[in-house]
């Protein structure tokens, strides 16, 4: 199929989430927005320059640009290898399948504060929260993508939420 500049929005909408997920996995949450902007600026400029491009697999095409942008962004990154380093303390912790991730205390008024707290956590927790709560990716998929046990992910989310909730309650008490 031939793509032109007019198809940019369509391509953007179709491919954005998957690329953002990949970028978050391969980089960090802070840089993700900058990187994904670079990816689509490059795509848009290509479409403007070439006027019309024959592309069989648009997902693969954009993904190729993403990989190139990431290579430039992190010159020494090896994209074929998992770059994450995890602490092993929680890895074998057993969590029941019925385990509930109660996050209803998070709302528009405290999200800024909560995200500030999450950003103080280790990189992997930030990624998990971003992938799960922002990009709506299933825990099983996150586990597979990050090569981490599902229960470990759940535990990390649970503990972080619990900690955040306690912190908010504590601060609420102090305010009263």
């Amino acid at each position, binding site marked *: 199929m031939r793509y032109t500049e007019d198809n940019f*929005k369509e391509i*953007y909408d179709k491919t*954005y989430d998957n690329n953002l997920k990949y970028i978050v996995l391969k980089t960090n949450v802070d840089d993700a*927005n900058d990187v*994904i*902007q670079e990816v*689509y*600026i490059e795509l*848009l*400029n290509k479409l*403007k320059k070439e006027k019309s491009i024959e592309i069989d697999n648009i997902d693969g095409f954009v993904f190729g640009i993403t990989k190139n942008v990431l290579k430039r962004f992190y010159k020494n990154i090896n994209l074929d290898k998992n770059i994450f380093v995890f602490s092993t303390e929680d890895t074998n912790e057993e969590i029941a399948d019925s385990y509930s991730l109660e*996050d209803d205390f*998070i*709302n*528009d008024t*405290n*999200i*800024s504060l909560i*995200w500030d707290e999450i950003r103080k956590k280790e990189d992997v927790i930030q990624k998990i*929260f*971003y992938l*799960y*709560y*922002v*990009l*709506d990716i299933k825990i099983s998929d996150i586990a597979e993508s990050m090569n981490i046990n599902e229960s470990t992910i759940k535990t990390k989310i649970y503990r972080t939420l619990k900690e955040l909730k306690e912190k908010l309650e504590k601060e609420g008490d102090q305010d009263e």
Partner: protein
Amino acid sequence: MNKAFKDYLYKKDDNYEKILEKSNKKRFTRKTLLTRVAAIVIILFLVTATPSIYAKIKWNIEFREFKRSRTVSDKISLIIDENVDDGPNYILNSNPIEINGIKANVDSIVATDNNIAVIVTYEFNDVSNINSETFSTGFLIYDENKNVYYCGGRMHLGEKTQNINAYYKLLYDEIGAEFDRKDLFSAKYTQSTSCGREKVEGNKITLRYQINSISGYPKFKTLNIKLFDLGYFMAERTEDGKMSAENFNVSNDEWNFSIDMPQRFLDRTSVKLKVANNIEGLELDKFEITETGLNVVGTLKDFGEYVEGGLNGTIENWGEFSEKIIYITDEEGNVYKGNEIGTYGKENGFHTSFNNIGKDDLNKKLYLHACIGYEDKVEEIIIDN
């Protein structure tokens, strides 16, 4: 999914706007950058080119002034008296042309199919301030059909080639010949040339201008000679052993002569020659004789080695040795030396010519000598029917 998280962190729409904005900005930036680069290039061009433009303007003014200031003589026709001279060495009895106190006279010319030599004597009011050892001039030789056989100057030191080339172009233009910048010295006709001092007598210096052609010059009727750029140089070795030289101009004027060749010269025809038995190591590509000369072109085993030996000094008395690489004798024991032997465009290729032998000499036995492996080999010369 948590709506609060998504609303706070999912920047898809914001990113889209920023992407469009940045894309346009990037393109604008590239355009701006290109404009700026172009501006810098123009400024650099103006900064660097202005001096060269001024230099060119200055030089053009100087060149125009030079053209105006020089005196160009009329072309004086010289007649060869055939009753006296039957070639190839033609004596000319003519009056010299005098310009600004310098007289130039063509004493004689030597003309064969492959060689032209012009003997000119210059007479000065006072020769004491001229280095006669290095005195030389530029010269232009051309025929009635505007074929330029040679146009070249004397050795110049520290002068821009551009200036010299412009002068040559002026000379070509003035005689109506086509100027070929890629063939400034008319290499298509002349493969070797020299301008050397013949003698010095009182206030007179005699120069010999020689041009040689391997393939032969056209059958010209009139030979035109222009003499220009008279000068000399002084050279000395400095204390640190380096050579230091300075160029001195004697005159920018031009002397023009024209020589109508005698009928005998125009009627000349070539006879092909060969050796009675092959000389091993010698291949003759061209071996011809006319009324006025003999020409030999070919390959000679070890010729390259000889030349190298002459250049690096391993062959002693190169001048004497080179005269014996190719020479001719006759049955009466006379020895005919060729003009200076030169290289020819292939491995061990050589060419030389003889102004001292003509067709008339075929009524006696002639022998070609060739130096092969440093030994003299000889074979009789016969007509190649």
